[in-house]
């Protein structure tokens, strides 16, 4: 068996006296969708931040391929986040001054793609997420559900190897949430991206291949509890 695309072992992370992660571990293969579940405050977002190199654990290692994220420089970590990782969060991630198509093109532009090809790719992704019609509108003038689809398009436009999604459907109604999950997992499968999907909703987690449960900063996989 080949090594997983992204893996973490023995993660500890404290905020003051609060232990957010306590010996957490995680592994995900290319093309896999893994749901991270667990009660509020259990450490799901902290785990995601450590896996994505947004936060550095106090103890333990995160390996992306053979890169040790903890040992890498800040510059190397932010370069990886730009080129190899994509992010979708629950709220407020679009740049309010930019139109939808400019928002989606932004990460491509930051990676050095010229404006025209970047916006052409952005337009394709907006169509794919069924929000091509709002391409020229700014986030303040589209619905929350449309905004979330734009955010998913933006996260996928760079064809990330790993997509990190923290409650991506948290603010959407059932039908929109479902459609976003369908489109997101379809696109991820097609591009063999791994998806780390933080959610507390079982119907959303049902789009994953397997789940990891976080409780009190510890991770558990169902195969270990049986």
């Amino acid at each position, binding site marked *: 068996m080949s090594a997983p695309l992204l893996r973490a072992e023995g993660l500890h992370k404290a905020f003051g006296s609060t232990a957010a992660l306590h010996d957490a571990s995680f592994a995900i293969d290319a093309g896999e969708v893994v749901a991270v579940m667990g009660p509020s405050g259990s450490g799901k977002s902290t785990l995601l931040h450590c896996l994505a190199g947004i936060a550095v654990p106090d103890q333990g290692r995160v390996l992306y391929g053979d890169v040790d994220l903890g040992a890498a420089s800040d510059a190397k970590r932010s370069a990886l986040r730009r080129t190899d990782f994509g992010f979708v969060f629950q709220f407020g991630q679009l740049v309010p001054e930019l139109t939808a198509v400019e928002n989606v093109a932004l990460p491509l532009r930051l990676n050095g793609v010229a404006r025209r090809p970047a916006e052409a790719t952005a337009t394709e992704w907006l169509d794919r997420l069924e929000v091509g019609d709002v391409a020229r509108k700014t986030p303040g003038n589209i619905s929350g559900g449309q905004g979330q689809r734009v955010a998913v398009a933006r996260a996928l436009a760079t064809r990330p190897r790993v997509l990190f999604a923290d409650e991506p459907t948290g603010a959407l109604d059932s039908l929109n949430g479902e459609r976003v999950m369908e489109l997101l997992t379809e696109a991820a499968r097609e591009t063999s991206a791994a998806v780390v999907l933080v959610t507390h*909703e*079982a*119907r959303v*987690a049902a789009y*994953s291949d397997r*789940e990891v449960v976080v409780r009190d900063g510890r991770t558990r996989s169902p195969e270990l509890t049986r």
Partner: protein
Amino acid sequence: MSIAKTFLGLLEGGPSHGYDLKRAYDERFGHDRPLAYGQVYATLSRLLKNGLVELDGVEAGDGPERKRYAITEAGVADVDVWLGQPEAPQPYLQSTLYAKVVLALLTGRPAQDVLDVQRAEHLGLMRELTQRKRGGDLADQLVCDHALFHLEADLRWLELAAARLDALAKEVAA
């Protein structure tokens, strides 16, 4: 829902007469549908035959109500197995899940474990339904949605119950 398993769980608290078992069952799990005496004694004699309970004493007089039953080691093991294995997920499992959580609490077993094995099992079925829905027509989608929402409701209730038990355990420990 299994009356036999529930009796075993209740007997873990100490030996009991059939009548008291029936009362405890009706109170906690009966939901306005009390057990018939026939069911009570049929269940107990089956448990006795299978070695999961034993007679703990028979008082003077005759009739089934004179017998006191105690759980055996095999009975405790049987409860362990029952609480440790998930129910085949299906909508409207509430009463069995409820019984499992309450009995885990009464017998000092971790309710979180009941939740964890059940979550895995429920999610397995929910994945299948989600797949089926993706390929299906509108009728399939509606049927699957109905099942998915009920399964989710079960899980949410279990999660809430486990969280409440956690809070309670912390209070007791403090």
